[in-house]
């Protein structure tokens, strides 16, 4: 087992026993389910809406060559500088140089998972820049020096009390009881940072090729401030975020809000079309869009799993995933948690190091059912498993499955299984859960059923006897 897999097993096993954590997540998501279902009920046909959303993303992802060029052309026409970054290092290098050239010292950032993916914050801090997160949830986990717990709800694992503790310790703020008080503390800190920042940084929910717009969705207004107040703006955009037409947003924005947070529409939806234009009095004077590949093109090359690039990062698959709900977001050890993370991380960061996430699934399919853009998530987990084994089988598993196949191809031999089971079952029962119990991976936590007096095959033979 690689270090990633060892870490996963350790953290996942610990959290599955943490009943406080289980209760916290169940409660948080319980509220989400109610709101999501209320919003879904407003659609004339949610399934048709999923099909439309998937079609828009399919068109974009299967014609990236066309739409990325169109997006670039439209953005550049209004004075935006577009940089194509092959990986995180190139993106960080470019953004650092933009900061250097513009004499930037402080950056205010609004939530970007793409930025998280390439560890952009730490890279810029290393270049001597101050980077402050302005999304409340992200701000909290940044103070705690933790990665986001969930791609949409970064601090959903924390209670109000824990947030209060963090604020007292890191900000020296007085004890606060209510969400309103806590928000005011965060706001007090952030307002200063907005005014001091000389660079704003954002991600993108969508990038509209037709009109050359970056579309940002948020509930706190922090992205609007981060993107419009500082003199320099950088938006980091995964290449799969491009969509063909402005009208695609008509289906994608409400679906993102409903699937992601159980909202009709997210509170603030902003379209950024370029830097300050002649005659305009506000807005950034420089606008840079960094188009990031970072192995997205290798996922694109996999025709079977290409639809994973449809992902709009709504988090719906995490919210319904029974694995996620029990092991929590941090156990994954990835930027993208839950089913989508388990599917794409092997493509982005190496199959052999991250295959364990694809195996850690009951393949229940709740993720696929919840996905607003119809990504075939649980089947992709199966494909990752197949690809991982085809590339490198597990030394002790290979003979087991070869033996299994040899045995199951011999019906006459298979018939002996029932009497063997009857003989073995009492022995297994007596040693259940013990170290030398061959079934202890099952019996450690669960009972085995008793062996029945006859198998179906025996019944059938007797009946036709």
């Amino acid at each position: 087992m690689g270090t990633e897999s060892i870490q996963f097993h350790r953290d996942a096993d610990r959290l599955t026993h943490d009943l406080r954590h289980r209760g916290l997540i169940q409660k948080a998501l319980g509220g989400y389910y109610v709101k999501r279902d209320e919003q879904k009920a407003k659609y004339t046909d949610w399934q048709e809406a999923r099909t439309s959303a998937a079609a828009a993303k399919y068109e974009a992802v299967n014609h990236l060559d066309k739409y990325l060029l169109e997006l670039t052309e439209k953005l550049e026409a209004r004075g935006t500088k577009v940089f194509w970054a092959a990986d995180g290092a190139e993106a960080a290098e470019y953004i650092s140089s933009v900061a250097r050239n513009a004499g930037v010292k402080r950056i205010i950032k609004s939530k970007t998972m793409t930025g998280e993916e390439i560890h952009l914050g730490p890279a810029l801090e290393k270049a001597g820049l101050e980077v402050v997160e302005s999304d409340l949830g992200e701000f909290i986990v940044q103070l705690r020096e933790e990665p986001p717990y969930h791609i949409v709800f970064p601090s959903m694992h924390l209670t109000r009390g824990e947030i209060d503790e963090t604020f007292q310790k890191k900000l020296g703020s007085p004890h606060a009881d209510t969400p309103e008080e806590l928000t005011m503390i965060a706001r007090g800190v952030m307002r200063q940072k907005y005014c001091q920042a000389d660079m704003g940084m954002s991600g993108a929910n969508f990038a509209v090729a037709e009109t050359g717009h970056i579309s940002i969705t948020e509930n706190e207004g922090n992205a609007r401030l981060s993107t419009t107040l500082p003199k320099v703006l950088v938006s980091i955009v995964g290449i799969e975020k491009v969509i063909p037409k402005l009208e695609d947003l008509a289906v994608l924005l409400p679906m993102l809000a409903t699937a992601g947070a159980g909202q009709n529409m997210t509170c603030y939806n902003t379209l950024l079309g370029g830097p300050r234009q002649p005659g305009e009095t506000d807005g950034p004077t420089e606008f840079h869009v960094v188009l990031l590949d970072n192995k997205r093109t290798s996922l694109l090359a996999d025709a079977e799993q290409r639809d994973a690039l449809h992902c709009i990062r709504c988090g719906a698959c995490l919210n319904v995933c029974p694995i996620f709900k029990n092991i929590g977001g941090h156990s994954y050890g990835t930027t993208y948690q839950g089913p989508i993370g388990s599917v794409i991380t092997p493509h982005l960061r190496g199959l052999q190091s991250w295959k364990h996430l694809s195996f850690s699934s009951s393949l229940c399919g709740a993720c696929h059912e919840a996905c607003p853009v119809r990504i075939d998530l649980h089947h992709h987990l199966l494909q990752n498993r197949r690809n991982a084994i085809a590339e490198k089988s597990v030394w002790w598993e290979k003979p087991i499955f070869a033996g299994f196949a040899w045995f199951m191809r011999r019906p006459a031999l298979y018939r002996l299984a029932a009497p063997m089971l009857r003989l073995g079952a009492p022995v297994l029962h007596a040693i259940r859960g013990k170290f030398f119990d061959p079934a202890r991976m099952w019996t450690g936590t669960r009972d085995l059923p008793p062996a029945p007096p006859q198998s179906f095959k025996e019944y059938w033979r007797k009946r036709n006897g």
Partner: protein
Amino acid sequence: MKITLFIPCFIDQYYPGAGIGMVRILEKLGHAVEYPESQTCCGQPAFNSGYWDEARSVAETMLDAFRDAEVVVGVSGSCGAMLKVFYPELFHGHPREAEAKALAAKTHEFSSFLVNVLGVGDLGVSYPAKATFHDGCHGLREMGIKREPRELLKHVRGLELVEMKEAETCCGFGGTFSVKFPEISTAMGEVKCASILETGAELVISNDSSCLMQIQGILDRQGKKIRSMHLAEVLANF
């Protein structure tokens, strides 16, 4: 109609009552049933573990076993989905792809076959109990079976069906997942069992015995006095 039975290895070895129940019901409805004895396992454990070559070699024995069948009716949503949904994928580009597709097309899950093909609702049985129904994920999401078992249970005299809070949430079994990641699998099962216990039911019914092995295994370990039964066993109570 001549019906060919698909009795997955799991049912054969551990839960023959489900298979026997299905035989009795189909015969009561006046159908001839046959059971090719050369069938063993559908190959799902190897398939789900990434060993597709091994899975395919096992699956070929099933293609042979059911070659001449008119309709194949299976008593498990999960193994049924293996034949119906995953065989075409497993044999994609393989010389026997057409056979796999043909088998997929004639394979049915038991409750769906009764309701949608035979048009049966009321089997004229009674089973006095307060029960809840667990939807096995493969039956539910791969094969779209949700209404059918409930339609059949609705007509069972004396059976009070109480829906649990998260009937569609996975029980955590997941085949080899349950022994590869026993802690996660058990935690999922505990959540499921809590939903079951909340209903106050004395009986949990499912169309998948593998889910019931997980659920009953946890309930037994917890010392809870709830029984589990396959849908076919309940419906064969005549």
